[in-house]
């Protein structure tokens, strides 16, 4: 397979960037809702929601960005993927609706707070699960007559497992984010859950990797054919290293709490970056497996690409605005840097 350097590849990478940003940012955001049932008091729930209340909107914008880049740059893939995954997409959207409005309504409610708690937890979990489900199906590939009656093809043991795995991954990101944004008992709890989730996520990644290599001969050939394995071996090795460091950092936070000594700042902040690194490596691994397909074994990115007139038109927008977006998003995070306090700021 020859790599053709061109606009198509650029947009494929851009799409990858958008998806990765979405997964990392909305990952910890949705993860907060997945973790929700494991925290019980109102104060803890307040803290969880307040730690992401100012960023959830921006984080979800990356999902819209991914959607419109797919729409504008690969219309055929957008059309095929969206209609193939009709039900999981609709369910994901409904989940996102409930968890999104919960931010506003929960803080303004008195008697209905418990409903908004459920809306946030169930909505976030449903959205994350559906995303994992679609990811699993994409890796697995869908049959040719995909849109028609047969489009329940997204329902398989493998895709269901991927749904749960993505939930665990998002919950891990949320734990690491919480370790950064909280102190005291809550931080201790987050670190403890985080350690368990590292193990669950690593086990899931191992299972998913073996499963795909086993069921998909093309993916097996990609990883083990010729000298490929030699080039690709750093991916699993680095993942294991990141997981090891992550587990150790969270353990240190844990131990500091037990010994009642101050938690060191770098042990609070590093876990989030390590978890992000883990996601990045898994994502690269996924790209290796499915490249050059947007809809595996059906539609490659070159087949789905829009005409050059459209791809060229979007370039200036991307080169001017994407750096700006990254800059002011970072600025937003900086303004709200530090721990979330138990005092309601804002409007």
């Amino acid at each position, binding site marked *: 397979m020859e790599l053709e350097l061109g606009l198509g590849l650029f947009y494929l990478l851009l799409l990858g960037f958008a998806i990765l940003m979405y997964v990392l940012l909305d990952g910890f955001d949705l993860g907060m809702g997945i973790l929700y049932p494991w925290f019980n008091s109102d104060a803890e729930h307040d803290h969880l929601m307040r730690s992401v209340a100012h960023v959830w909107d*921006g984080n979800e914008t990356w999902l819209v960005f991914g959607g*419109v880049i797919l729409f504008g740059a690969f*219309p055929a893939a957008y059309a095929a993927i969206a209609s193939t995954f009709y039900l999981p997409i609709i369910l994901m959207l409904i989940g996102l609706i409930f968890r999104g*409005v919960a931010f506003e309504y929960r803080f*303004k409610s008195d008697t209905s707070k418990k409903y908004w708690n459920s809306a946030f937890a169930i909505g976030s979990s449903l959205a994350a699960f559906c995303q994992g489900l679609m990811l699993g199906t994409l890796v697995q590939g869908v049959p040719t007559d995909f849109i028609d009656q047969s489009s329940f093809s997204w329902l398989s043991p493998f895709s269901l497992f991927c749904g749960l795995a993505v939930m665990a991954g998002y919950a891990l990101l949320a734990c690491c984010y919480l370790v950064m944004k909280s102190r005291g008992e809550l931080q201790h709890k987050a670190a403890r859950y985080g350690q368990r989730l590292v193990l669950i996520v690593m086990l899931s990644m191992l299972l998913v990797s073996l499963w795909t290599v086993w069921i998909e001969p093309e993916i097996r050939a990609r990883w083990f054919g010729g000298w490929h394995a030699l080039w690709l071996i750093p991916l699993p090795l680095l993942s294991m290293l990141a997981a090891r460091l992550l587990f150790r950092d969270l353990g240190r936070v844990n131990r500091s709490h037990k010994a009642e000594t101050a938690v060191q700042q770098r042990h609070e902040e590093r876990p989030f970056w390590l978890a992000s690194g883990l996601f990045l490596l898994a994502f690269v691994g996924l790209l290796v497996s499915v490249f050059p397909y947007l809809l595996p074994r059906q539609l490659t990115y070159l087949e789905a690409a829009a005409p050059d007139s459209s791809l060229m038109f979007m370039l200036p927008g991307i080169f001017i605005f994407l750096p700006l977006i990254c800059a002011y998003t970072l600025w937003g995070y900086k303004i709200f840097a530090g721990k979330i306090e138990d005092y309601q700021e804002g409007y």
Partner: protein
Amino acid sequence: MELDVSILSRIQFAFTVSFHIIFPSITIGLATLIAIWEGLWLKTGNPQYLQLAKFWIKPFAITFGMGVVSGIVLSYEFGTNFSKFSEMAGAVIGPLMAYEVLTAFFLEAGFLGVMLFGWQRVSAKMHFFATVTVAVGTWISAFWIIAANSWMQTPQGHQFVDGKFEVVSWIEVIFNPSMPYRFFHMLLAAFITATFVVMATHAWYLRKGQHIDFGRKGLSMTLWIALVLTPLQAWVGDLHGLNVKEHQPVKLAAMEGIWAEKEANVPLLLFALPDMKAEKNHYEVAVPGLASLILTHSWDGELQGLKSVPAADRPNVPMVFFSFRIMVGIGLLMIGVALLGAYLRWRGTLYQSNWFLWPVSLMAPTGIIAVLAGWYVVEIGRQPWIIYGLVRTSEVVSPLPAERVLFSLTLFVLTYSLLFAVYLYFMRKLIKKGPAPIDHLQQQRIGVKASGYALSFTKTLATDAETSNSPATETKGAY
């Protein structure tokens, strides 16, 4: 009855997009109003403006949240329900939406966090900048989505290659013939919608005898704004109508209920029951020649009628006809309110005239109804075409099993009905609670520049709370 997937998909899109447009219509105008109040507060130091901004930012926040979640649905619904359209026109519509996300959505979302939660973390000027940015973001967003929609109404600048649209000139695509009119018409509509939501609320306070100063300030400002914007909107609307006559004559014929292939000296129908089978109107109440005068600027000007095209190429006439009358009727009512308000102000009896305040306090939803009615004219009036004159809507839906779309449609109807009730409940709650007292606002010490300030402020609060042993009251009572 056999379920038709094309009808179901169209109903679902109509329902979800109708629900969505309610919220941006309010937030575009409300963000602008809040930015104006914050700017006036910075300029004059009058705390009343801060009170207005800080009160309305709460309804703004829940409205914006509703707009965001219902908007995400739309960005995927093109693909889920109109996959053939997405594939065919994606190269035109997709990049326009990509620009909307790049130049508007991220901007709004990025600065919204600071606008809502950053009062104690950035300087007052920086906060004002964030609010202005959010407001401008909403305008930019309207620009791109109207450009995309207008291209579907009056397409140009493209070519058709292998069953797909390709763009030849982006300038022609974006600035297509109907775009400027529709952009200004919608932007004004959004400003007016928010103006009347605010006006009604403040009139309600005055009628109830609550928050008198606050009520007066808001009512006075919004009446001034309405006095400028509502006549301006009538003028822009008229220009837009002329543009429709030029580019979408069949839509115009449906709006005016004109059946004959060509008709001169066309009457303006105040009321009628259009009958699509008999191809004529019943029970006409008309002003002779007025439609010709308005649309051609001459009493015996000629207009194209519905029979100039085959029945299969006509939209649903009664829906377009009545939606148009609802929109225009509300517009005239708004102009009337603005003029009457100005007259009462001149007489010096505005704040005491309960007979005026009472109906005005009920006008909060009028802008939204007019926006919806206007969009129904636009969208139903364009049928059966999805891209006017080129592609039929029924040809480009996703080939999904009908039951699946029925299922999702049911899910959306249930979810949105529930959410709309919740939205109204919380709006009512916020409005009943009223604004924070002015002295309370000054205690909040907005505009402290150090971002570490929040932390130290919190610590003093925490110690206060410990001594008074009531941490809950501090958070609950925070405005």
